[in-house]
């Protein structure tokens, strides 16, 4: 699996062979009526990466988030000027490998339904600066906690939800670590935990995806994403 943000990994779309474009023509050329034709035209361009429907859409949604994390940590670890201690680099590398594991796992579950590698946009991050990297990391981890938990009730096959619950608590551990590393004792402060002692999560996959898309060049057709 390619995760490095190298030029050859940026998704290059061949006109006419894009997943959503192919689907578009299938719909248009089939027995589908004008209503469906128009509906397909609305909101998403033929060049958008179609993420699928129902459980596959949810899996691709989580795959997008995990790819984003994996790409981010890969770039952070590969930045020799990043001013962190040896011990911090050890932990950062560990987190990178865990996110690569999550992304690879989701890709395996998706099989032929997996979307191609996404093109991340980390222009808002200063990779030599510890504060910039850790702040972005904490934000990304919180977003992934939200992503996994928001998706859980939407899975037709609840076995997915139960398996990914094992990842959600790990993302929360990551977030706590980066928060503490930035500001000691902020691992679970009032900005992320509500008055019931619950991790404040967005409950809609769409909300989470919209937030993640701020850091991704790839455009997605997520019109069939549940929630």
């Amino acid at each position, binding site marked *: 699996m390619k995760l490095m943000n190298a030029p050859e990994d940026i998704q290059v779309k061949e006109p006419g062979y894009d997943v959503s474009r192919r689907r578009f023509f299938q719909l248009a050329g089939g027995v589908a009526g004008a209503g469906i034709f128009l509906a397909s035209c609305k909101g998403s361009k033929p060049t958008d990466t179609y993420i699928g429907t129902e459980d596959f859409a949810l899996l691709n949604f989580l795959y997008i988030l995990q790819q984003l994390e994996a790409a981010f940590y890969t770039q952070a670890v590969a930045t020799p000027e990043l001013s962190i201690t040896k011990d911090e680099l050890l932990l950062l590398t560990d987190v990178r490998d865990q*996110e690569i*594991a999550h992304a690879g796992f989701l890709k395996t579950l998706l099989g032929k339904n997996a979307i191609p590698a996404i093109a991340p946009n980390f222009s808002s991050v200063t990779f030599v600066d510890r504060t910039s990297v850790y702040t972005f990391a904490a934000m990304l981890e919180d977003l992934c906690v939200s992503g996994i938990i928001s998706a859980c009730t939407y899975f037709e096959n609840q076995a997915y939800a139960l*398996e990914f619950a094992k990842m959600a608590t790990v993302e929360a551990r990551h977030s*706590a670590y980066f928060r503490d590393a930035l500001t000691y004792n902020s691992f*679970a402060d009032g900005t992320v935990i509500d008055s019931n002692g619950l991790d404040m999560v967005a409950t809609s996959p769409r909300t989470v995806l919209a937030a993640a898309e701020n850091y991704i060049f790839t455009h997605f057709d997520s019109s069939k994403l549940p929630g």
Partner: protein
Amino acid sequence: MNFKNILQQIEKADPEVYERLSGRRQILKSFGSKVAVAALPLAIGSMFKKAYGRTTDVVVDALNFALELEYLEFAFYHTANNTGNLIPAADQPGFLTIEAHEQAHVNFLTTTITAMGGTPFVPKHFTDSTTRGSFVPAAYDFTGGGAYNNVFNDYPTFLILAEVFEDTGVRAYGGQMSAFSGNALLVQAQQIAAVEGRHAAHIRLIRRNAGASELPAPWITNNIPPTTATQANYLGEDNTIQGVGAISIDITTITDGTGTVPKASATAAFDEPLDKATVTTLVSPFLKP
């Protein structure tokens, strides 16, 4: 919290839910955007009781088991935070935060169980004269029958038990998730479990920075315990095979650009569940008869 989404899910799982209830509009009117956060468990609980009265037993049992663990954790931190010269000043804010969360969890679970028509768990000796609110010191022996006599005198010993309680708490919630399968409470259960994960990460980082011999990361590496005596709490954490249904993969075969994912990271990436019987055995040394 987006209550409409939860309703959509219930609707999907059970198209007849509104016949069991009094109509979607009525529910939204009652529990819509203006519902107070504190009232949410009550709102959800009473709704479920009304709609699924016969099937709440499994859910209530799981919530009560979680409540049992939250009472234990709350008593542990409440005792520590009120013991002079135990927690260094720099670490006190963190442990006050953790204690407040455990108290909030006790309240949230108790309210939810009550609203579902269940009977909330209370610790043994709840009527003891030393009980103050949710603090039931008479129920617990945090020396573990003499194995940790310095638990509230020696900070490193306290940290070891805190780490074990939090990691075991995360795994215990994981083991109960299937009880909430297809249920809106799956969201809340995961929200609590995530908070326990944050606590565990914080305590582990304190121990790492203090030079604990096994050099704990904020996450669980392989099945490495803080002490050999607590190995049982970490058994199974070295699992590298993950899957759903017929599809599974050995995580250590996934490539990371320069090689494959190391086993340490492959195991850390997933918090493995523990079943109720195992957790009960693990906490039993800390419960008074």
